[in-house]
């Protein structure tokens, strides 16, 4: 059912876990299947107000009660965003993530779970540090 590449990510996900003092946490749930995803991100803050460009995702981890595809694709999401700025991470699409994985049709929604959790984490970050964002200096 799943491609070799997907199985590799499923069997040995590299980014599973919690980040204790994460800068932001995002959650996402899939109402169709009931699966849940948590994503933790750690960000290298910049005091500059150039919000989207300077804040870099240093580390990220996920936890999920999800299917094999959800595990693999969330791991892939993190692989893609590590070292990227928030602005870049925000632009990530399901197609970017699923490329090369040959997801079965009924499993495409599973790849969205990780992206949504990431986006919610970014929103969380923006809310928490809105003072940085609005800093006129």
């Amino acid at each position, binding site marked *: 059912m799943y491609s070799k590449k997907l199985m590799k990510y499923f069997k040995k996900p590299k980014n*599973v876990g*919690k980040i204790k003092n994460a800068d932001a946490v995002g959650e996402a749930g899939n109402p169709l*299947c009931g699966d849940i995803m948590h994503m933790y991100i750690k960000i290298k803050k910049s005091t500059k107000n150039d919000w989207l460009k300077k804040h870099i995702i240093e580390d990220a981890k996920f936890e999920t009660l*999800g299917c094999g595809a959800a595990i693999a694709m969330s791991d892939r999401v993190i692989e893609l965003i590590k070292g990227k700025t928030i602005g870049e991470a925000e632009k990530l699409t399901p197609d970017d993530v699923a490329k090369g994985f040959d997801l079965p049709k*009924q499993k495409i929604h599973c790849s969205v779970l990780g992206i949504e959790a990431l986006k919610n984490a970014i929103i969380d970050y923006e809310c928490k540090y809105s003072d940085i964002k609005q800093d006129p200096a």
Partner: protein
Amino acid sequence: MSKIKEQIYFDYAATTPIDPRVKRVMEPYLDDKFANASSVHSMGQDSANAVLKARDTIAGFLNCKANEVVFTSGATECNNTVFKGVSEAMKEYGNHIITTKIEHPCVLESCKYLEKRGFKVTYLPVGSNGVVKVSDVEKALTKKTILVSIMYVNNEVGTIQPIADIGKLIKSFRSLSSVPRFPIFHTDAAQAVNYLDCDVDKLGVDLMSLSGHKIYGPKGVGALYIRKGTLIEPLMHGGRQEDGMRAGTLNTPGIVGMGSAIQEIKKTTLRQAQGGENQENKRIKFLRDELINKILKTIPNSKLNGDKKLRVANNVNVSFKGVEGESLLMLLDGEGIAVSTGSACASGSIKPSHVLMALGRGPLESHGSIRITIGRFTKESDIKKLLAVLLKAVKRLREISFF
């Protein structure tokens, strides 16, 4: 069966391997005994005789007459024939059908099809133990009820339904009714044949669906028991095979295989009838209980789905909190262990199992369930290996989830 050795197979409810004895009996009919059982020449009559013999064997097993057995392509065809054939033949008498929420999709989809055509279907609930209540059947019966269809053993959680009691209820309902032969009572016995008494008179059923590939026979063959006098239309029209009840060239190798598979089951039950114990079923039941007990004991937050006692000898269905069923299935598969999941995730749809939902399990619990079904070729060492691997896999997935 070399495949089964390197991979340990725990999915007997999905399908069984062919018993080597069955295969041997079938082989000539895939080979030089290929003639059409409807042909008049002696080669054809050879095939016809083989079919006759299989039919007699099955009739003996069901305690019915040989001409009450109709060969089909499997249980799905049987069930479709029952729903479409009975509703068509009886539409003048009523439009109400009773079934349960936990039936096989081929029953539920046939019901949906009939609902679109004006029939009313009552889907009976089951208790949290996965068993239907006879009193609920009684309450649902009306003068317009033409068909009651309740599976003998549920395919997901293995619960045994009180078919004989429902049979009695229907008989007494009929005796009070002005049209004494209604409603017609059907049971899908596909998951029951290996382990339970399928005497149609004891059960009080008019129709019974059987499948070849769940009983160590070949795929693509099934049998429908039709009590004499039951009003039912055929699904397939064409030649006069099966007295016009099912057109299409007889699947001689399949039918011979199914007969032989039933013969093997009969041997074990015969010993039982003579006062001996059914060693085969006893052994399987023992392994199953060991599996259930050890899982519940060694894996915290695990839960058995379906009644512990009213349960077919070979079924284990468990939910693990904080674990998603498909991920678990895949991890086990990676270790060479084949199980199945209640969450339909793996099979295309992503909705949680309708059976577990009917048992009152929430979507999360339904999602974290796997079905382990054992059988004739399961060894004690297989169970040990499964337990060890399962323990590790559940632990691993709980690390990934936030359990």
